[in-house]
C-alpha cells in the first residue's frame, strides 16, 4: 500500500483528488487541510508521494516543497503540484524547488492517475 499525502485547503478540491485516487488500487490517502497539517503529518506517516496546492494560508506549497526537498528523511519522494494557470511564476518556482510534476486545475483525472502509476507503480 503506497501512501499519498494531499495538502490542499479547499475541501471540495481535496475530495476530488481523493475520489480520483480512490478508484485505483493500492493507494492510501492522508489529507492535510493546510501546510501546517502537512508538516505535522510528514514525520508521523510514512508518505510515499506528496500532492500539494501552492496557494494555502500560513505555510504555502512552495514552502512545503522547499522543506521536503531539504529534509533528508523525505528528500527524494515524488512531489506533484496542483495549481491554476494564473500562478505561472509560482509554478515555475515550485518546479525549480524540486517538484516532479504539475497539474493545472481543473485537472484531468486520468492524467493524475497515469502520473501516479508512473511514480509509484
Amino acid at each position, binding site marked *: 500500500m503506497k501512501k499519498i499525502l494531499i495538502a490542499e485547503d479547499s475541501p*471540495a478540491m481535496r475530495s476530488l483528488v481523493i475520489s480520483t485516487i480512490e478508484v485505483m488500487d493500492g493507494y492510501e490517502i492522508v489529507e492535510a487541510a493546510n501546510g501546517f497539517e502537512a508538516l*505535522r503529518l510528514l514525520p508521523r506517516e510514512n508518505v510515499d508521494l506528496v500532492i500539494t496546492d501552492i496557494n494555502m494560508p500560513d505555510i504555502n506549497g512552495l*514552502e512545503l516543497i*522547499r*522543506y521536503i526537498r531539504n529534509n533528508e528523511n523525505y528528500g527524494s519522494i515524488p512531489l506533484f503540484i496542483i495549481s491554476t494557470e494564473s500562478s505561472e511564476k509560482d509554478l515555475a*518556482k515550485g518546479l525549480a524547488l524540486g517538484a516532479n510534476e504539475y497539474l493545472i486545475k481543473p*485537472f484531468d483525472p486520468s492524467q493524475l492517475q497515469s502520473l501516479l502509476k508512473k511514480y509509484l507503480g
Partner: protein
Amino acid sequence: MSGAGDTIGKAVKDFLAEAEEIVDQLNNDLVNLGDCADTGDCNPDLLNSIFRGAHSLKGLAGIFGFGEIGELAHNMENLLDSLRLGKINLNPSIMNVLFDAMDLLGNLVRGAGDGHLDTSGIPAMVARINTCANTSRNNADDSPLASLGLSESVLNALTEYEEHRLIENVKKGKSIFSIIASFSLTTFDQELGDLTDVLKKEGEVISTLPSVGSGNSGGIDFEILFGSARSCDEIAAIIDRPGVTISQLGGASSVSMPVATAPVHFEEPQSEPVPVQQSAEAGMTAKSMSRMVRVDILKLDELMNIVGELVLSHSTINELVGKVRGSGYSTLAIELGKAAKGLQRKLNELQKGVMEIRMIPVGQLYEKMSRIVRKIAREQGKKIDLRLFGADTELDKLIIEDISDPMMHIIRNSIDHGIEPPTERVRLGKDEKGAIRLSSFQKGNHVVIEVEDDGRGIDIDRVKNKAIEKGLIQKGDILSEREALELIFLPGFSTSEKVTDVSGRGVGMDVVRNNIAAVSGMVDIETRPGLGSKVIITLPITLAIIKALIISVAGRTYAMPITSVLETILVESREILTVERREVIQLRDMTLPLVRLADIFELNDIAASPELFYVVVVGVAEKRLGIVVDDLIGQQDIVIKSIGETFKGFRGISGAADLGDQRTILVLDVGGIIAESTRGSI
C-alpha cells in the same frame, strides 16, 4: 443548466456547499475591505484572502462543469490579483464593481443549486471587471528586493505575492526582519501560532519558511520574514522567547540575540521529552480543522424521522406491556416493562443527540444580517451601529435558514423606515449613528429574537389612514394601538410613500409573518413614537419531535404542540359570556377570548354545546386564547410531517403526525390560530 450532468452527484453537492461557504466568506471580507478602502489603508491579508476565495471558486467551478461561474470568478481573480500585487490601487469604483460581481456570483451559485442558472449577466460583468483591471494601472516598480540580501534559497521559495508584500513593506519605510526559531516536531504548530499571533500585532508576517531543525532531536526550524516599524530590540522584547534569532535584512542590519548566551539555535529544555498531555493539547489546534464534518441536513432529517419512528415503536411496546400484564403474565410484564424503560432512556438520549447536531448558533444568522445592514446603510447613506447580543443561542438549522429572509426584511424595514437620515437625527438630538440591536435568548422551549431600532417609530395614525385608504378598515372604526399595529401584517399593506429600492420589493410584513408562522413562530411589534420600534420573533427551538397534547373535537382527533399550551380548564357552558359578539370567559383576573375548533374547521358538532367542556389555554409571546375542545386524550411525542404544498394554505394546520396505531392526525398551528383570532377573522 450548464454541464451539471443528468444527476446532481455528490461531487456537485460538495461543490455547492463549499461554493456557498466561499461566497459567504467573500461577502464578509468584501464588506470589511469596503470599510478600509474608505480609509485607504487596507489590510493585505484581507485582500489576499479575497483573492484566494475567488481563486478557489474558479478552480472548483471549472472542475464541476460550471464554466460560466468559473469565467466570472476567473476575471474577478485577475482583478484581485492586480490589486493584491499592487499593480492597481483600490478605489470606490473598483469596490462597487467587486460588490456587484460578488452579488452576481452569489446568485449564480444559488442558481446552480436550485437548477435555475441564469448566466446572462456574466458577459457585461466581465467587461466591467476588465475595464477596471486595465485602467489605473500603476507603473511597474523597480524592485528593492535585491537590497534585502535574501539568500537564493529563500528567494526561490517566495510566491509572487510574498515578494510583492516584501517590496510594499520596504516602500512604506518598514524594516524587514528575519526571525528564526526552533521548535519540537510535536508542538511546533501551537508554539509557532503563538509566535505569529504576537508578531501580527506589531507588523506583517510575510512568509513562514520551514526548514529541517538544526538541533539534535530532529526538530523543525522556521524562518519568518516580518515587516515592521519596530526595531530589532523591540521585537526581541515582544517575542520574549529563548532560542530565537532576529536579524534585520538589508541596509544597516543590526543583529541581536534575545538570549545573551544563546547560540544561533537553541533547543528548549522541555522540548525533548514532551509530556503526553502537553503534546495532546498542542495538537488540538491543527486537528480541530479536520474534526468538523459537513452533513447534508436531509440526512439529519432522515435520522430524525427514524428516531421519531423508534419513539412510536416504543409506545407500541409499552402498550404490549400493558396487554401482557392484563393476560396474567405478570413476571414477564415486569421484565418487559424494565426493558422498555431502558429503551426509553436510550431513545431519549438518541433523540437529544440528533437534535443537538441540528442546532447551530444564531451567530451564523447575525453574520449574514450584519453584512446586509452594512450594505443597506451604504446604499441609503445612513450610519448604523449594529449591536449583537446572544450570538451563541442555539436554534435548529432549518429554522435559522427559514427565518433568514424574514429577518432580512425586518432589518431592511428598520433601516428604511425606522432609522432617520443622519442630519435629521442630529437635529432631533439623537446620535448621528442609528442603533440596531439584535438579541436572542432562550425562553423555555422557545428562542426569542428581537430586532430593535432607535429610529422614528411607527406612526399609528399614518398606519390607520393607510388602512382606510386601502379599504382594510372603515373610517370611524375604533382600534386600540395593538389592533392598529396588527394592520401592518395584513396582505398588501405598505406605508412607504414611495417605493424604495430597499423595502419596495413587493414583500410585506404579511409575508414575513407567514414565513415565520411556517416554522411555528410568532412575530410581534412594539413601537414608541420618536424612540424606535422592536420586532419580536418567538420561535420553537426545534421542529423535529415535539410533545403534543392530543385532543378531540366533534369526533376528530388533533394534536397541539405542548409548548404553546399554558393550561387546560374544565368549563361549564353557563360561564361563557359574550362581549362584542365574541365568546369569552373570565379566567382569574383576565378576560380570555374563546374560539371553537368546531367553528374554525366547520365541523358538524354532533353534541352541540355540551354542558361541560374543556378549554385549552394557549399562548405564544404575549397573546392568550382559549380553544374550546370536547375532550383531552393525553400527551404524546409526535413527529410533525409536512402535509405538502397543496394544503400549505390551510389556516390553523401546521402538519400531520402519526400516532403510532396506524392513525394519522392533523397538528394545529396554534400561532396561526391566535393570529387569525386577534385579527378577528375567526
